[in-house]
């Protein structure tokens, strides 16, 4: 459908927007854009049906902050009603308690819960839309060389899950037709013993097939080289800790903290680059960069730049805090347009369809 790189930029743009703003107008707009994309693009992907249960579950989960925030947080001036109060671990005079449930339910707390729920919906819908059109093979091939072996192993592990689910169904059926009933934990032994054996046999066959096709570690590192890499990674992590501590403890003179952080990042980058060069493995890339990918990339980058520029300015109305009294959130039409631009995939993909893009 879209080139993986362009499609990844769309995902990053959507996630940056969903994670940075708390403005309910922007979040609603973003959720609507993601839903339209999911619906229109999902009609062309057999994977959409697998995401639907997770989306339903997310909708259910998004109701949780709406329910629990007013129960536990009693800030806000617009009291809607009072609930009976339960206080745990309160002091003898009942002024302070470790946990208080119930009490005044405010419109502000309810709104804040709704905003949190909306953020969750935006993120999951964006992820789901990305996944229904993303090609795992291309994603795998987009990984840095040093992570490729790990990526292959992960993709195998993921593809193993449906195979084992089917095997579990067959075993369950086979034991039922013997008259076996599954009542307690002990009865599950007849399920897991064959599953374990079948799983191990399949894993052995797969490993054998991979070995016969030349898959194995090709970077014959000496123990000393391995230890050097491990030592450098440990050093980088230590530097990250130092930088975090410095930045956390000092309000002034923050530059040295950021410098140490940059040094740690550079060190990790060099280790990965150096390890990547040792992997003697090529990648089969056949993805075509089409004009529509350029258009999508331009659209996403423009939106992202606008969004980031406004996120640091009061005119962007990015943050919204409903306490102490609920007020109308601000709305900047330019930011709204930047969010609306993310509907691009659904619009651009209507231009032309490539039968080879079947997912």
């Amino acid at each position, binding site marked *: 459908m879209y080139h993986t790189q362009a499609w990844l930029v769309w995902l990053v743009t959507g996630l940056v927007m969903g994670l940075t703003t708390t403005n309910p107008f922007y979040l609603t707009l973003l959720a609507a854009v993601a839903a339209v994309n999911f619906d229109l693009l999902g009609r062309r992907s057999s994977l959409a049906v697998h995401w639907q249960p997770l989306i339903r579950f997310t909708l259910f989960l998004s109701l949780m902050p709406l329910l629990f925030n007013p129960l536990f947080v009693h800030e806000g001036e617009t009291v809607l009603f009072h609930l009976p109060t339960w206080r745990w671990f309160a002091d003898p005079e009942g002024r302070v308690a470790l946990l208080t449930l119930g009490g005044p339910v405010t419109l502000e707390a309810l709104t804040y819960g709704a905003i949190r729920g909306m953020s969750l919906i935006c993120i999951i819908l964006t992820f789901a839309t990305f996944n229904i059109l993303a*090609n*795992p*093979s291309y994603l*795998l091939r987009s990984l840095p060389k040093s992570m490729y072996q790990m990526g*292959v192993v992960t*993709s*195998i592990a993921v*593809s193993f899950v*449906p*195979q084992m689910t089917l*095997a579990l169904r*067959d*075993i369950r*059926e*086979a*034991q*039922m*037709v*013997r*008259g*076996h*009933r599954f009542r307690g934990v002990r009865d599950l*032994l*007849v399920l897991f*013993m*064959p599953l374990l*054996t*079948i799983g191990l*046999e*399949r894993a052995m*066959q*797969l*490993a*054998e*097939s*991979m*070995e*016969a*096709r*030349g*898959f*194995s570690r090709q970077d014959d590192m000496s123990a000393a080289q391995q230890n050097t890499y491990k030592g450098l990674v440990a050093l980088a992590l230590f530097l990250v800790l130092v930088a975090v501590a410095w930045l956390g403890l000092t309000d002034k003179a923050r530059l040295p903290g950021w410098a140490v952080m940059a040094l740690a990042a550079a060190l990790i980058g060099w280790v990965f680059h150096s390890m990547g060069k040792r992997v*003697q*493995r*090529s*990648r*089969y*890339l*056949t993805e075509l960069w089409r004009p529509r990918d350029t258009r999508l990339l331009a659209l996403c980058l423009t939106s992202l730049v606008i969004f980031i520029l406004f996120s640091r300015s009061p005119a962007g109305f990015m943050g919204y805090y409903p306490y102490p009294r609920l007020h109308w959130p601000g709305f900047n039409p330019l930011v709204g347009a930047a969010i609306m631009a993310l509907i691009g995939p659904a619009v651009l993909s209507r231009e032309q369809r490539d039968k*080879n893009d*079947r*997912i």
Partner: protein
Amino acid sequence: MIEFDEVTFYYAGTERPILDRLTLRINEGEFILVVGPSGAGKSTFLRCLNGLIPHFYGGKFGGSVRVGGRDPLQAEPRGMSDLVGFVLQTPEAQAVTDTVESELAFAMENHNLPQRLMRKRIEEVLDQVAIAPLRHRRLETLSGGERQRVAIASALTLQPRILVLDEPTSQLDPQAAEEVLTLLQKLNTDLGLTVILSEHRLERVVQYADRILYFPGDGQKPVLGRPDAVLSELPFAPPLVSLARQLNWTPLPLTVKAGRPFARHLPLEPLADQAISLRATSQSAPSKAILVLRDLWYSYQGKEALKGVSISFEAGQLTAIMGRNGSGKTTLLKNIIGLLRPQNGVVELHGQDTRHWEVQTIARTVGYVPQNPDTLLFADTVREEIEFTRRYHPSSSRADTDALLEQLGLMHLQAHYPRDLSGGERQRAALAAILIGNPQVLLLDEPTRGLDYQQKKRLAQFLRDMVGAGKAVIMVTHDVELAARCADRVVLMGDGQIVLDGPMREIMRQSMVFSSQISKLFPESGYLTEDEVLEAYRRHVAPRN
């Protein structure tokens, strides 16, 4: 091309060598068929060719192997992978990626080939294996035959000079198996590829082989020779070869075409005049139906698998249900046993509607042996496996377990761990674990996968005995020879419906695909097995003597 010199191999923890001082030579461009009973060393031999043995399996290795001038022990499997392509039994167990094209690229990526070269080779191999229309498909959407062809193609992308295949058709239906074997023959003749193939179903492949390598097992020396020479000595053989050997036809015909001149001049008693006990035909008196299906419908997520199937089954009758993969055969069995519930229609057992019965209740009357016996077996010994089922069938006694072990030839294996047994023994252990419930109806789903001729013959006899004892046996199978040997009736399914239903002899006489080797050899006569032909021949000859 391939040289084995005094090769001996012991698996770790064993005291008997699986290969004992094996010495042989295989020339470039040969098509070698590797045969022998399970556990005789076929797979071990194949894995020595690319170093998987001993590198992947461990064990003790002696002697020397040279393949295309390389030593697999030194080169290791990775170093041999551009010389020896390797394809396993189960197509789904060897897929690493998710789409056809990326699967084809996997081996080349491991060899760090440049992008342009990979693209060129993928285009070539897509055409060689005739899978170009599948290139963008996801692997899970392919049929078994298509997946196996993709597995072969992915082994070919490194342009190996030798292609090694370990029973590549054992999980496939006859049509898919035929596609794969035809492809191998084409690769052998067109590209000069050396093909080394282990296979149980000799009748399909023996005509392509230049030589046969026979592993007899039990410590006997393997034999490598011309197909007719080796086949004349084998303890098992396809029906045609078996018949030819008993009638001393020379040269030994390996194909139906080669056998026809002999068959034409063979004097036989006409089938109708024979006194041999032919199995039930349409003329047999109908008995009361034990199981009746009326207007059965079933669909998987909107895809219809059964479309108004109506059929009845009688006691004392063996029905073979045949048809292509996906025609609804297994779905039909699962609806009978209650693992799937019909969305419309009725299943009646002894006149009672079972749609609301639990599976465990139906299982008191109906036994079901699934395709893969491994899904059943979990206990430490074969006896415990049977005793586990017996707990749910109180009417059976310990004496019944003994009788069943004896009847199925498992008594000497009763203390063995079921998963250490051969394919045929595991199949019998699974059968025993179901039969201890003494079901009146027995459902079998592909019972001959991985069985050799002797094991199939024994299974056929056992099923005939069950039918003789008044049971109704319903068997889903692709194995035409098994159906010819033991079925009374054949039901042919297609696209969720019953296409043909009738006495086995009539159906086989009418069908082009579903007919046995003997039926093709004597198309007008109605004979189905070599035993029937031999009996007819003896009856014809006997009065003159």
